[in-house]
């Protein structure tokens, strides 16, 4: 019986139906379905299917984002119901991302966040025009495993260095990995300012995040 409820969660994500995902989550709980199974076999499965379609160019960013939204909304229903004794497969890690300044064209900037979510990370997106102070305050508050920052000008690239130095001063630097991105950045620049990784685009950012958290390498 639980299978039908789990199936309808997968379907809601695959069909980009946010409201259906929420009501399917509620119905699953009422029917006594294990919330962990609902998340792992229902929602996560749906997101994986959608991620594959994205990779195959069947769907694009908007569909991906709605599917992620459906998953997130259903999670808010399912998560509180998780029995403390039951084991939830941990997310791959918490990633906090932000852009130091806006681009001339802004519309695609949510790409990295959506891609990381589909890959299984928990994402906190600070948006654009994030100041050095805000990055640091948010690291304290959110306690991410990875901080991702991007910049578009060599002048604002310097502020990445300020963030890293600020984290060091606050004693936070060892607690997070720092990944940088954006057109003018390079792995050389990442090394120079003491970042842990560099990802030029959304796909690379996912790879770098996985590598940093799950196949630890020595810090350069």
């Amino acid at each position, binding site marked *: 019986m639980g299978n039908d409820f789990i199936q309808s969660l997968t379907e809601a994500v695959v069909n*980009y139906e*946010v409201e259906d995902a929420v009501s399917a989550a509620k119905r699953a709980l009422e029917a006594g379905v294990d919330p962990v199974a609902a998340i792992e076999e229902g929602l996560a499965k749906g997101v994986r299917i959608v991620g594959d379609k994205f990779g195959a*160019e069947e*769907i*694009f*960013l*908007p*569909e991906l*984002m*709605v599917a992620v*939204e459906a998953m997130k909304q259903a999670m808010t229903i399912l998560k509180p119901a998780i029995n403390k004794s039951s084991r939830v497969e941990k997310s791959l890690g918490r990633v906090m991302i932000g852009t130091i*300044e*806006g*681009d*001339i*064209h*802004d*519309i*695609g*900037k*949510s*790409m990295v966040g959506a891609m990381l979510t589909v890959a299984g990370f928990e994402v906190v997106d600070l948006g*654009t*025009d994030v100041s050095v102070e805000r990055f640091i305050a948010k690291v304290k508050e959110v306690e991410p495993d990875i901080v991702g920052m991007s910049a578009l*000008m*060599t*002048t*604002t690239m310097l502020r990445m260095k300020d963030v890293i130095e600020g984290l060091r001063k606050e004693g936070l630097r060892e607690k997070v990995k720092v990944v940088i991105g954006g*057109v*003018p950045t390079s792995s050389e620049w990442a090394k120079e300012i003491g970042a842990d990784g560099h990802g030029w685009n959304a796909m690379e950012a996912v790879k770098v995040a996985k590598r940093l958290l799950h196949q630890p390498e020595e810090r350069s």
Partner: protein
Amino acid sequence: MDILRGKKKQIDRLPAFNSVGTYTADCMKAFDAYWPEAHRNPVKMAKLGAALHRLAGLESVVVPFGLTVEAEVFGAPVNFFEDSVKWPSVKKFIAKEASDLKVPSRVDDVRQLGRVPVVCEAIRILKREFEAEVPVIAYLCCPFESIGSFLVDSADFLKRCISEPEAIHEFMRVTTPYYAEIANSFKEAGADIITLREEAVSLNNIHPKHFDSLVKPYLKKLVKEVKPPRILHSCGQLWSPNLEVISKLTECGAEALTIEESTPMEKAAEIVSKAELTHALGGNISAYSVIHQGPKEKIQKSVELAIAKGSDMPMPGCDFWLETPTEHVRTFVEAVKDLSADLG
């Protein structure tokens, strides 16, 4: 200009210009026309828009800078980042629905709103000065990009393309005549060419079928209402082995299309050569990794390649990178002049 009329065979060589942003940090310094002042002061705007023509021989003068002029007209609170050189952005997104936009009751009221009068005055100054020399180009940020980046939360806007397409239609339907009016006011002020920037319709953003349903009808209408010649510009990847949006862009009716380096020039050229309405293709030299970074030989080689692959207007893929050395722009201009001289 003849290229835009489809008369490539009658010209001696290709134009060495850029039909999108031609501002750089060096230019701001050279003419004391810094952002954000140059966004609001027509004299400084004109100075900055003409700077690369003066300093590097670029064959166009272009205003405005950034993409927020149109959004401001509809009530977006623009953040100019006083005391720093950053692309203008907005302090917050003002609209959830089309009814949240401040839409003036009469279409021609937009001519008095926001920075539209500033841009028009800058165009008049440029026209007086460069009339016989180089084309005065003004660009317009088109509705899908303008609304989706500066009026509605971008993530929300993209999601609603799927979950609530009627809302997107409503935004596009209500605003399109106003965007056309802004472009025509630039035209009447003296702009020789209007560049229509619908930046975010690539495969990086939406499915071509959503371009067809949500963007194309309005873009077509916009192009039709703006007086020619018109250059349509879009960034991002417009072609893949499975899908492309280039042919759909050419159906919108602009005389020319310009693309950036994420789209292969030879594929675009093949599609544009079959297009009925669009007969010139521009781009797709990387503004960052070629023209900004150089060196000289790489710039020359890239111009040569762009021409060889079918670019009628070998130019940067998008705005010049803000920190581009003037010398690199000069190299680009000379390379286009030299390498296309024997085409005629």
